[in-house]
């Protein structure tokens, strides 16, 4: 099986998502700007979801457009 780019993309989004989302959840006041939503947590969670999706796609038949 040859190299599948979805694997590193999935892993990277998972890692960055956990890092940023985790900071949003537990990082205290510096993680949220006053009057703004907790963007670290929201975007972090979305990045984790995207990472998981990419990893799941590597299990699907590769090479499809």
């Amino acid at each position: 099986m040859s190299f599948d780019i979805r694997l590193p993309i999935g892993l990277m989004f998972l890692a960055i998502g956990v890092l940023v989302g985790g900071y949003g959840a537990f990082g205290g006041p510096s993680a949220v700007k006053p009057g703004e939503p907790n963007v670290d947590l929201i975007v972090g969670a979305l990045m984790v979801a995207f990472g998981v999706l990419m990893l799941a796609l590597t299990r699907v038949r590769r090479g499809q457009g």
Partner: protein
Amino acid sequence: MTLGAVDWGVIGLYLLFVLGIGVAASRRAKSGTDFFLAGRAIPAWVAGLAFISANLGAQEVVGMGASGAKYGISTAHFYWIGAIPAMVFIGVFMMPFYYGSKARSVPEYLRMRFDEKTRGFNAFTFAVMTILSSGISMYALAKLIQTLHVLDGPFAAAHMPQTWIFHAAVLVSAAIVLVYIYLGGLRGAIYNEVLQFFLIVAGFAPLVWLGLRQVGGWHGLQAELGPAYTHIWHGMGSAATNRLGVDWFGLTMGLGFVLSFGYWCTDFLVVQRAMSANSMSAARRAPLIAAGVKMFIPFVVILPGLIAIALTATPDRPGASSQPPGAIVQHAPGVIPAKVDATSGKPMLDAHGQPQLDYDLATPNLLLREFPTGMLGVGLTALLASFMSGMAGNVTAFNTVFTFDIYQAYIRRTADDRHYLHVGRLATFFGVAASVAAAYLASAFNNIMDLIQLVFAFVNAPVFATFLLGMFWKRTTGHGAFAGLIAGTAVAALHHGLTLPMDDLPGVKGGWLAVTHAYPSEMAQNFWTAIWAWSGCFVTTIVVSLATRPHPEAELAGLVYSLTPKIDEAQGSWLFRPVTLGVVMIAAVVVLNLIFR
């Protein structure tokens, strides 16, 4: 603004993955085909995303935000008219010749179709141009990092002078791109471009979301900025009534036809991505898939500019409630700062006594203002990723053209594959080193760089006429093509020398021969220079071709439309055939134009 540990963590993770992909790709970079063409094994969607990512450099991200702030949503013309139709055209009509001819580069196609001199002219100008543009964008990135002051703290803590920030930014970013291309070749570059593409979206889409919340959504933007900023066809009937200073004819012919087709259909930087695809049908679908994504990029790169200007009080905007009409704003508070004169330290004023805004800081400053620690790291990584994808595009196109169209053509004609692979790696190293040199040249002599870029714009303007005639008129000859390119370049220079944008002085902006016509804007002058250059090349190529001996038809099979068997795209459902995809893309872009008319 200082970066927290989380921000550094994000940047670190990104760099780790980028280098890791380079190492993984190097295991499969054993032959010339691997290194220069990614083994012709790239799936359509990967080639398609790389196709846009290589073009989505930092200058594009920052520049489109700047144009959004200056001209408004009309900037989307650079995508919807200035890219999509050309991307559909190359996918449906031109890829069969590029891919089917087995040419390894665009200049090599020119040699197969025409002759050595046409190839040589294209190869040399292209090689120099890619090095210059990667150097200029490296300079822009380093300058931006300096301006944003994000590295001031760490440098002060390490007792290093602040001036080293520029050197560090140039050298570190160049070194990383060098490593992953040197190791993985085009495959390393393309895989990274896909990863970088997703990161760019992850960094800028949340910026648009947060920004729109602040200004009250799209309707809030419309109310704040007025129709000239938020409608792309507003006042396009005449150059005097819209912010771009161009009329609809100059826009559609100059940008939509000549410049757009000249770039998207002939520039090896993007075409190389499609040529690396794993089959003819993938190669044709790559630009079409790219078009489907490209048409939505304006929402990620242009909207930050509009949001930034809405959060900045300016005097020429009656909608800006905080300023009474006619008031002189001494310093523009808000996201976009005024340009400051380096010697006097005072804001620079325009002809009307108003401060000139530094639009290039629209997107970066919005990012610093909106993002908290954590997302700030993601945003800066997105900026870094856009820079690297753009630079890698230049470097891989350079090493291929240098190896096949300069070294193999003029220095050593026959050698084994290993030798050319070795030359390709050396060319990568040399290309990056030359880009660094160009970055320092740009920092020392900004005017010289403007002049060189201008000369290359003349060379580039007519090029699509040559390809159009070459691919679709079998009578076109090598002498005709070469004469056409020279004539088109000369016409471009002549037109520039005889015209001038209003409010500019004769010189590098034009009018250096005589001023016979004044354009309402520099953009209008650019578009018309391109239209004249294209026409000059088109006519000259036809006339000279008719006067010279045609190529034997047998030699043109697979290179010219009428002498190539039509490709049978029977496999797969009709929905994914190039023609169907092309029609869908054009229809979608028409809808976007109607929504934002």
